[in-house]
């Protein structure tokens, strides 16, 4: 516990967070063209027909502290990724608030880099988008490429990203995002991709990031990687926070529930 409690300084506070998606379903059944028209006319006055509300996160509250690595588990569609996006400030909350220390960064396997550009240019572009300076990127460029292991099988970094396998692309994205010291880093399923060798390396890197006084969130369906990297786990189900506690207890409860 002592390791987790170090300093006891909160970095993320979620206060009764609700998130609602509004989805344009295109048509609302009968008379779709006129329905679509009336939808356009009625914009701004409540929810028009043809717009479905999806209540993805319902009243989640927790406090995360400096130095913690927090796993987020739950079945598909339980609101894990949505919650991380809200913490990152990328999705606005319907009600409730998220308070953060500094700017949290979200690292997802589908974070967009540009497929038509070479890996080389994507490293620079990704770094700049994260707010690194050109000098910082030049300094860390070698590390990023080495860490990603893209060049292990020949000079791939100077080829366009569209020629990469999905595992290679995911590895490069992770390497770029992990190159910066984040106050709060959120990782969405990143460890599920890549081969075993890369998984071990990224687990090491996550531990390193934790040491640099950050807080790490990890969304994963791989209970082993949660156990290996996290000290605390949030269990979400249907958008609600079911359990919040030490890894072993929550993960075994989760395993019992899912195998039953």
């Amino acid at each position, binding site marked *: 516990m002592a390791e987790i409690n170090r300093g006891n300084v909160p970095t993320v506070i979620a206060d009764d967070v609700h998130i609602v998606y509004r989805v344009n379903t295109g048509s609302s059944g009968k008379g779709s063209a006129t329905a679509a028209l009336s939808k356009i006319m009625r914009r701004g006055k409540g929810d028009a027909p043809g717009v479905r509300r999806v209540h993805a996160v319902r009243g989640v509250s927790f406090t995360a502290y400096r130095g913690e690595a927090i796993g987020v588990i739950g079945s598909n569609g339980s609101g894990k990724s949505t919650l991380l996006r809200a913490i990152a400030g990328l*999705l606005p909350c319907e009600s409730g608030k998220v*308070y953060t220390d500094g700017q949290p960064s979200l690292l997802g396997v589908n974070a967009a880099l540009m497929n038509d550009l070479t890996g080389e240019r994507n490293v620079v572009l990704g770094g700049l988008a994260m707010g690194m300076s050109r000098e910082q990127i030049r300094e860390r460029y070698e590390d990023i490429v080495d860490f990603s292991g893209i060049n292990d099988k020949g000079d791939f970094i100077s080829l366009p990203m569209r020629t990469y396998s999905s595992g290679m692309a995911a590895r490069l994205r992770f390497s770029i995002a992990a190159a910066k010291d984040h106050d709060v880093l959120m990782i969405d399923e990143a460890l599920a991709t890549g081969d075993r060798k890369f998984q071990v390396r990224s687990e090491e890197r996550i531990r390193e990031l934790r040491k640099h006084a950050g807080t790490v969130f990890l969304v994963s369906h791989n209970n082993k990687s949660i156990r290996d990297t996290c000290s605390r786990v949030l269990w979400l189900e249907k958008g609600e926070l079911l359990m919040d506690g030490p890894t072993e207890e929550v993960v075994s409860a989760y395993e019992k529930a899912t195998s039953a």
Partner: protein
Amino acid sequence: MITGRAPQARCHLLPHLEDGKFQLVSDTTQDGALATSKPPSEDAGLAPAELARKYGLSVSGARPTLVEYVRQLWDRRHFIMAFSRAKLMAQYSEARLGQIWQVATPLLNALVYYLIFGLIMNAGRGMEKGVYIPFLVTGIFVFTFTQSSLMAGVRAIPGNLGLVRALHFPRASLPISFSMQQLQQLLYSMIVVVVVTVGFGNYPRLSWLLVIPTLALQFVFNTGLALVFGRMGSKTPDLAQLMPFITRTWMYASGVMFSISGALEDRHVPAWVTDVLQWNPAAIYMDLVRFALIDDYGRENLPPHVWAFAVGWAVVIGLGGFVYFWKAEERYGRG
């Protein structure tokens, strides 16, 4: 299944509540109240908002002040430049001839327009070939500059949702970066313009320098337009389907392939109608570039107060668009 287990888990967790670390929010309480235990530490009893204030935490995803927003944008200036250049390069990355298309595309465009409007329809009534062809080519490229900035603005947010949802940066970077891309595209096109202009006997002279302030003002105007439509397009992506019709109408009303004053000359319309048509921003910037480059396109082709309007449009749309875009900063990428 799950709800049956939660109370058990809760009892299990209770010992840890003492050290102030863990709190359990249970969904099993019937009255809807949150079953949270306050840690007995020094922070005990602090509401989340108070705790956040104590440690200097800020609300995630809140809109910064306008000054702060400008500062953030300035910090990302390298990203804006790199992104626009990357987009420009990516355009032709699959073509064999690669970057040669940057110049070849506008050249072919000019040829097609010349074939249709110059040879078949003879739209240049009364204008000599030496004037009409540079007139037409200049008009097309200068209008395309505005048109494509606008279109790129509409798609700026919906077309980059992955980026918007994954990374945190001031969203205005995207529309600005796209109009920067169009500016670079225009500079390639200007190579064609210069070749055509010189080819028809208009040699470089001092007035050519006027092209620089004109295009700078047009760039500010375009960026403002891209920001306005960037916000509208993020809320209503359908605009991308609608805009081509609007820009085409705008193009025909702006005198890209004919002179507005020339076309209205024998229609007996009041002079102010001609002035109003010529004060439309696209027409203003086109006419100023033509005035600068073409020897025989003189002062009489420009509406009154032309520079005042050129500056006015840039300032009003540029600043207005920026503020309008910033007002919805926290809502981009939602849903």
